[in-house]
């Protein structure tokens, strides 16, 4: 804080109005473009569905439904152990 004199001169010196107007415009432009993008999303999604039909999804035909929790390393570990246990049981019996 420089000199603590309440004055409109400070605003002029600091280009306050110009900064505010331009800043506000940029924020508006940004959110306007986001809003336009959102409005176009259904079309974009439809276009994507055309190039990569949901059925192309290797999990099966229900691609646009939320996929199940990530097949993480931890989870797959569990799968493997499960597979192994099943295997051991089969080969022992």
């Amino acid at each position: 804080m420089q000199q603590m004199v309440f004055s409109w001169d400070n605003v002029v010196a600091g280009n306050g109005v110009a900064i505010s107007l331009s800043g506000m415009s940029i924020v508006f432009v940004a959110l306007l473009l986001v809003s336009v993008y959102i409005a176009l999303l259904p079309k974009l999604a439809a276009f994507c569905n055309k190039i990569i039909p949901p059925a192309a999804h290797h999990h099966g035909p229900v691609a646009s439904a939320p996929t199940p929790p990530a097949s993480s390393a931890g989870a797959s570990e569990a799968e493997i152990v499960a597979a192994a246990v099943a295997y051991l049981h089969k080969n022992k019996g």
Partner: protein
Amino acid sequence: MDILLHFLSTTGFAEMTYGNFMMIVIGIVFIALAIIKDYEPLLLLPIGFGAIVGNIPSIAGMPLSVYDEGSVLYYIYFGVSKGIFPPLIFLGIGAMTDFSCMLSNPKLVLLGAAAQMGIFITLIGAMFLGFTPAEAGAIGIIGGADGPTAIFLSSKLAPHLLGAIAIAAYSYMALVPVIQPPIMKLMTSKKERLIRMSAPREVTTREKVLFPVGAFIITALIAPGSLALVGMLFFGNLLKESGVTERLAETARTGMIDSVTILLGFSVGASTQAQTFLTPDSLLIFGLGAASFCVATASGLAFAKFMNLFLKDKINPLVGAAGVSAVPDSARVVQMVARDEDPHNFLLMHAMAPNVAGVLGSAVAAGVLWSVLGL
């Protein structure tokens, strides 16, 4: 005997000032508000306790405070002073936010832009009061009603005011249910408050996945200074929506955000030493902060009414007040005020749209202010 005297001279009692005492009382008040009134407890309580810690007088020569290089608090505060914690908080927020409300009603996004007027009017006000342009920018961002964004920008533009700005931002966010309703009632007619809005459409998974990627590119290109904040926000959201990285999203919205919240709140609190905090500047900042919240609320309401001039399907103008972020409190306030008029009017979901758009809006504003005032 000498030793005992030396001991006594190293106790905190010797150095305790009236200012420290006042700050400790303020810390206790914050904790009380968090517990009794449930005002943003996840932040007010850590900040309150931190304020007590930061105002225990430190001993000359012992590195104890957040400002003493080498102290424990210094290293914790590093995440604040370098602006690292805010983007990590945004990562967690992204991973817990469902943007559906916004995707189903894109025009409400503009209300999130309008409410940022609070930032820029406050910037002019702060300049008028004699703050430097960089300081004025950092103070203005309080009007964004977003703690992490305020901390991020302050750390870049005016580190010496960070404590006051952060405390002001969080305090007013906590007080949203007190500040907003009178303005909302003043600026809207009963008829307007009774407007019902049609149910938002359902959004597909594909759209939810496409949204964070595209929206990030747009906002970051327009305001590269907001890269870290909006990058992490949309990255977290993509982790959530992709459906293939659920375990990462889960960690981002639990362990990670909680750890960072603890360390951020505590060390921001501890940065409010009376010696640097109890200054006329801080008082002015609190005053400007209050004004900025009012201006932001009013701008959101006014723009909603302005939009209604052109729309066939009218917006309930109360929803404009949710354009100040303060997620999700200001959306709840909208719901509450609307329900006061008509118990069957559900505006919560509609209010969430400008609410999350406001987060984006203030991050963009922060990026713009940093690039113009920080160089």
